[in-house]
């Protein structure tokens, strides 16, 4: 309501000091008028009559005395039909619309509607006059792509409301009212298909938050089988540069078993966003058979875009994720990279001259990170359906050293840790998730005892490998050497996966189970091998056949043939299954439910 104003009194980078009159609130949005443009900004500190604001644009050209207008609103996301398939900047401006208005460059002060105000959506009412509703209840639906998009009573309405009237089935824009509600005192307000929600506040219009137990398939063997992620869970991927964080995120965004994927490209390369933009419209979602883009939202604040909106972008992303979760959908939010977000906090903290914490990150870094990941969750909604937000964040630790503050603060709050290692990526072992350091608290698609059996071999093989570096091959016993070769085999044919090959990348749960059983047969058997030379040759041949097998389509003729060849090798090596492995292979996949 209040149109407060102020005047600029100082500029330092994107931090501007403003002398104001009247009342303003923390995190309020304001605009600085400069050289014919209005620059969106957010209040981040108030002292006496001076507010410090972070400007979401380049600040060149601002001078003391330039006017500032306060809006009274917090930084908000607009929620409604039409979000899917969009490419937004961190402040939810659709980038294609900005391109139409401003051309090649992101000229400052140019903003656009988040949702197309002209587009008509076919609304079907679900309530009638007299119904009693509260925030988060559904008044009707519109079809959005392959989804039924629910139209909600805005999440910020407190108390109970009575429906006075509701629009008939028909086509409406997101700005036209579709229902009129009355509060307990009888004051009326009209509801449109879109509303705003302050991005830094979690949406909590659900009945109950449940424990994340359902596995979220990613088709990446190493993850699904050994370090799984649950729907509604959180995980992080720290790794030095070049270890394949972004490729991993990209693969996950294509194959993850969820309804909607939100990609937050936060302070990373623009080229990667372009890759997604080019590739996704051409790919189809195996679940719906429609373009992958129809289930994707991209929030892109690349590294050269202003730093303050980088901070906003992660909150905008998670708010959109929560919105679709409210419709009973499973949403995956991929944030790449949370370190850039943390650095944005650090830059502002430095300009505010706050007392720095470790590596000059602000003292509130940990609570910010925890607050962000805690917005993930598996919830039961008021109507009994369930929805989830899963958050996967990459971390880019300085120097690849996981001891640094952002990695450590993240590890405290996530449920799975996929640590990438430089040694693995240097040796082109992709995905470069290091099985020796990674962990997950969630349940995977492979029975736990089988996964443990495999992990044990990896650890044992690694120990023998390091020992061999000291005592040499001749100082290693044949049986140890064979375990070493088995660990290598497991790594080469199962942990490593060529995600650029369509068949290899699309490794479904049934296939993972089937193939791993074959592998357990090989790993859990003794072979008649006379010496190390013979052992190495034998496992090389198995590896070769296995790799060929991986490249055949599941349950195809070629698949059967390649499997037959492995069986042939097994027989030729006179394989005898150990009792431990024999027991493992009994009794299907049921894992105490």
């Amino acid at each position: 309501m209040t149109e407060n104003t102020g005047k600029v009194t100082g500029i330092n980078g994107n931090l501007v000091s403003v002398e104001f009159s009247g009342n303003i609130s923390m995190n309020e949005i304001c605009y600085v008028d400069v050289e014919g443009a209005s620059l969106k900004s957010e209040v981040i500190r108030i002292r006496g009559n001076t507010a410090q604001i972070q400007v979401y644009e380049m600040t060149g050209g601002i001078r003391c005395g330039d006017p500032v207008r306060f809006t009274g609103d917090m930084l908000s996301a607009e929620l409604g039909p039409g979000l899917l398939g969009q490419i937004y900047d961190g402040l939810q401006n659709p980038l294609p619309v900005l391109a139409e208005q401003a051309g090649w460059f992101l000229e400052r002060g140019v903003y656009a509607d988040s949702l197309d105000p002209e587009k008509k959506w076919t609304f079907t009412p679900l309530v009638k006059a007299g119904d009693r509703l509260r925030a988060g209840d559904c008044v009707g639906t519109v079809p959005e792509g392959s989804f039924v998009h629910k139209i909600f009573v805005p999440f910020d309405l407190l108390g109970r409301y009575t429906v006075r009237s509701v629009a008939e089935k028909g086509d409406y824009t997101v700005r036209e009212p579709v229902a009129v509600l009355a509060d307990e005192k009888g004051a009326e307000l009209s509801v449109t298909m879109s509303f705003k929600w302050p991005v830094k506040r979690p949406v909590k219009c659900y009945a109950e938050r449940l424990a994340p137990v359902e596995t979220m398939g990613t088709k990446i063997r190493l993850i699904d089988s050994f370090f799984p992620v649950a729907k509604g869970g959180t995980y992080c991927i720290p790794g030095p540069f070049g270890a394949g964080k972004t490729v991993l995120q990209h693969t996950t965004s294509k194959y993850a078993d969820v309804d909607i994927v939100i990609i937050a490209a936060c302070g990373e390369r623009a080229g990667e966003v372009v890759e997604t933009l080019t590739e996704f419209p051409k790919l189809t979602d195996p679940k719906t058979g429609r373009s992958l883009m129809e289930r994707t939202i991209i929030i892109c604040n690349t590294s050269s875009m202003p730093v303050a909106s980088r901070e906003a972008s992660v909150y905008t992303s998670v708010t959109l994720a929560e919105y679709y979760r409210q419709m009973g959908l499973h949403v995956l939010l991929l944030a790449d990279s949370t370190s850039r977000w943390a650095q944005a906090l650090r830059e502002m903290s430095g300009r505010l001259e706050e007392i720095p914490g470790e590596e000059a990150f602000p003292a509130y870094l940990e609570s910010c990170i925890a607050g962000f990941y805690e917005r993930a969750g598996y919830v039961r909604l008021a109507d009994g359906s369930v929805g989830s937000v899963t958050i996967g964040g990459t971390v880019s630790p300085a120097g690849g050293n996981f001891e640094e503050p952002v990695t450590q603060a993240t590890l405290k709050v996530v449920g799975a840790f996929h640590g990438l290692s430089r040694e693995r990526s240097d040796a082109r072992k992709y995905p470069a998730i290091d099985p020796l350091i990674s962990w997950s608290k969630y349940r995977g698609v492979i029975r736990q005892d089988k996964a443990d059996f495999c992990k044990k071999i990896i650890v044992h093989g690694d120990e023998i490998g390091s020992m061999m570096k000291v005592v040499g091959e001749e100082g290693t016993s044949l049986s140890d050497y064979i375990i070493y070769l088995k660990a290598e085999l497991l790594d080469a044919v199962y942990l490593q996966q060529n995600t650029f090959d369509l068949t290899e990348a699309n490794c479904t749960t049934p296939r993972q189970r089937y193939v791993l059983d074959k592998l357990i047969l090989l790993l859990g058997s003794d072979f008649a091998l006379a010496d190390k030379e013979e052992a190495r040759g034998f496992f090389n041949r198995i590896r070769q056949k296995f790799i060929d097998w991986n490249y055949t389509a599941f349950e195809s003729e070629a698949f059967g043939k390649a499997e037959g060849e492995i069986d042939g090798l097994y027989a030729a090596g006179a394989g005898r299954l150990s009792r431990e492995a024999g027991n493992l292979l009994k009794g299907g996949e049921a894992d105490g439910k």
Partner: protein
Amino acid sequence: MGNKIFSRIESIAGSVITVRATGVRYNELAVIQTRFGKSLAEVNKIDGDLVSLQVFAGCQGVSTGDEIRFLGHGMQLSFSEDLLGRIFNGSGLPLDKGPALTENLQPVIRPSVNPTKRILANRMMRTNIPMIDMFNTLVVSQKLPIFSISGEPYNQLLARIAMQAEADVIVLGGMGLKYDDFLYFRDTLANGGALAKTVMFIHTASDPIVECMKIPDMALATAEQFALQDKDVLVLLTDMTNFADAMKEIAITQEQVPSNRGYPGDLYSQLAGRYEKAVDFEDSGSVTILAVTTMPGDDVTHPVPDNTGYITEGQYYLKGGRIEPFGSLSRLKQNVNSLTRKDHRSLMDAMIRLYSAYKDTVEKKNMGFSMNKWDEKLLKYGDLFERKLMDLSVNLSLEDALDLGWKILADCFDRDETGIKSELMDEFWPAE
């Protein structure tokens, strides 16, 4: 308005002066008249009527009574075809004998390109260096650093790429360049006939520090303008560590809280702002960036190479006069190497994997362990690989390099020792 003159310098520290003035815009340029002549200065902080400026020529000899005239605009660049073949300093003044350029002034600082106006990098830039073309293909609009240490022939490598790469325009930005290196670039490009398509922005080691900070901006603004004229531009920067050190110096002078080893907290954003100028414009030209980054103490975790690595699309390691296959990575290579030849990707991966095994064997050998048959094969392979493919003087087209790769494998190994899928081997494994 823009030409107000002030002469109340309140403080002078390092390359930064503080002056009392009003009506001054953030990032505005000013001219300071000292007893040694004129210098440009740029506003980098305003607090009420206290305005801080970084003085391009440095503050030596600046007097508290010197006059400062604000120009009413930020850094500008005169853009035209006349730039080609010319050499400038960080302020945009000519270093050669040519005239100063003043027409068609364009702002140096531009907002970033709308990501939806970029197109996917998918054109290979051939260099005929196998370690680049075959193992880490350079792609148009890519940004890649060359990580190196002092003493390595990085400027020679850069010059060779400049001569051999297919680009319409070359922009060279030299920061903290030794004077003889500057002469080397100038003469090499001139002798190779490339000078006429080159623009140089040069800061030598003895020039003032603020100008060093301006080199990448000037070079990249020039490149961007040419790219908008439908030109494929290759920007060569050397050495970005000097640029970062210049930033550190200014930040410390202005009492900013340092984050890591004295570098300012926005080092990542500052570097990214420059590297992200690499672009392939929809319906127009492109900017490709190769930037030498020397690693102090050969330490890749030093803040400058570390932050750079997170920004760029891979990196080349130059070590012992060779581009190292480990760690060197062109992230965009998969955009093009599926289109080159179908064995390219698998062969490249297999050869690197085997080279990695070779390195383990060398280690084993150095520790005095006996070599088995497999080790002997690896040793033979590693030697061939280093001599025939890694050496920087090897000048081979991609296709010839691939054929040579298969030949080396066949010379050293049996088919099922390579880990390549059989289908490819049936086609490419050389017949005896």
